């Protein structure tokens, strides 16, 4: 059942998102072409400038739109008239959340890939590729060596968890919004803002509490260069707290959504 739900959600969401991201890439290609025609990126040109501006606008919009779109799809299929079909399928709310959430997470990842691709299309050249390859290798190397390893891992974990957290925050907002009969979408937006504010407050408080860390500088050895970095300990703590907070948000978001779908569903 989960696979089937995922299949249909993926197909439906991709119809719009593929077109959107294709447009992003198209603009990137046009921008690059306009640069090349003019002899390189340094050349001044109104058209190139405009295309570049539009490319950036569209790319940023696509990224934001992707997340909101997935959230809106959840709202539409669970809390509007379509909900009469969705909520009477022989599946559990958990399966609905997972199948739709996974689609969202994968598309967020795809979106990031396409954003990078767009950037490369516009400004990429051999030098950039080489530099990127070197940096990737370095990061991989230092995942397992040295004092920076912990930091690198924490950053990586944060990056992986963030899309999941966004998805579940969206779903929880939409679900909470559905409790405000007559103003469901407004309620969802309000809930999202509310969640954001709470997040920030908790983050601020925990940092304030743990801010007084042992500030002995840490020694990092990269190759033959030894650096003394202050506050690495603090950064690690901050990252760790952030991860814990993200996990909490994910769980709370999931359970709030599931609870509302199970006990507080009220289709009109």
């Amino acid at each position, binding site marked *: 059942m989960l696979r089937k739900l995922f299949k249909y959600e993926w197909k439906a969401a991709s119809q719009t998102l593929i077109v959107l991201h294709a447009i992003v890439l198209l603009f990137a290609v046009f921008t690059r072409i306009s640069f090349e025609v003019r002899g390189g990126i340094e050349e001044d040109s109104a058209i190139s400038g405009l295309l570049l501006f539009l490319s950036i606008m569209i790319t940023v919009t696509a990224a934001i739109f992707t997340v909101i779109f997935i959230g809106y799809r959840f709202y539409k299929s669970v809390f509007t008239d379509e909900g009469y079909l969705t909520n*009477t399928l022989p599946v559990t709310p958990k399966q609905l959340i997972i199948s739709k959430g996974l689609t969202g997470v994968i598309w967020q990842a795809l979106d990031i890939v396409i954003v990078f691709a767009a950037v490369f299309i516009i400004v990429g050249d051999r030098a950039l590729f080489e530099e990127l390859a070197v940096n990737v290798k370095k990061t991989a190397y230092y995942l397992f060596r040295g004092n920076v390893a912990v930091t690198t891992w924490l950053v990586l974990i944060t990056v992986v968890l963030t899309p999941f957290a966004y998805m579940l925050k969206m779903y929880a907002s939409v679900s909470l919004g559905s409790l405000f009969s007559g103003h469901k979408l407004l309620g969802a937006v309000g809930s999202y803002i509310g969640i954001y504010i709470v997040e920030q407050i908790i983050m601020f408080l925990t940092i304030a509490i743990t801010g007084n860390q042992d500030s002995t500088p840490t020694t990092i050895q990269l190759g033959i260069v030894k650096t003394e970095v202050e506050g690495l300990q603090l950064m690690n703590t901050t990252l760790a707290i952030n991860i814990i907070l993200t996990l909490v948000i994910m769980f709370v978001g999931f359970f709030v959504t599931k609870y509302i779908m199970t006990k507080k569903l009220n289709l009109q």
Partner: protein
Amino acid sequence: MSKILECQGLSKRYGKKQALKSVDLSLESGRIIGLLGPNGSGKTTLIKLINGLLSPSEGTLLIDGNMPGVKTKEIVSYLPERTYLNENQRVSDIIDFFVDFYADFDQSRAGDMLKRLSIDPTERIKSLSKGTREKVQLILVMSRRAKLYCLDEPIAGVDPAARDYILDTIINNYDENATILISTHLISDVENILDEVIFLKDGQISLQTAVDDIRVNQAKSVDALFREVFRC
């Protein structure tokens, strides 16, 4: 004959309003049952509870011995008042969807019904008239070989010819192992196909009886009795 539905002390509150008050109800399989009552009497609330779209405030509700959940949704086929079809889909898409999710969906039956109504499966829902969309939804619901069919106001706001078609479809797809629960306030149109009726008044059952008992014992039609019971 087994009980397809059993409610005990079932209540549902929306804030201050009590839509259902301690309802005790049991339905046998193999019947066509009318759930009759004026608007706001709790008919839709009861049907939503059966389909797991609402949670009871108090009491229990069992369908074929199970609480509303995945197992019951597999054997309950629901026709809501609203259209739940996605505008951009084709008719064939939604048929495939039902085939995928419901093991009891009879695809050939659905195909026959569509053909008889000259509905082109490749058409998109948004290009169909409101009446045709409702018929498509009816076909989807009646093509399932479910144990309990819940039809919420299937003929309200529908022209007389379409009404006949809907009632014919219901009779045609009747299965002696299934129960059809029809919620409506248009009684004279449907009473000839009912075995049993339930009168729901202000969230409580005021009457549950075989239809012919009313005709024999009270020499009235159900419609006439309804008008008496629910006189304004």
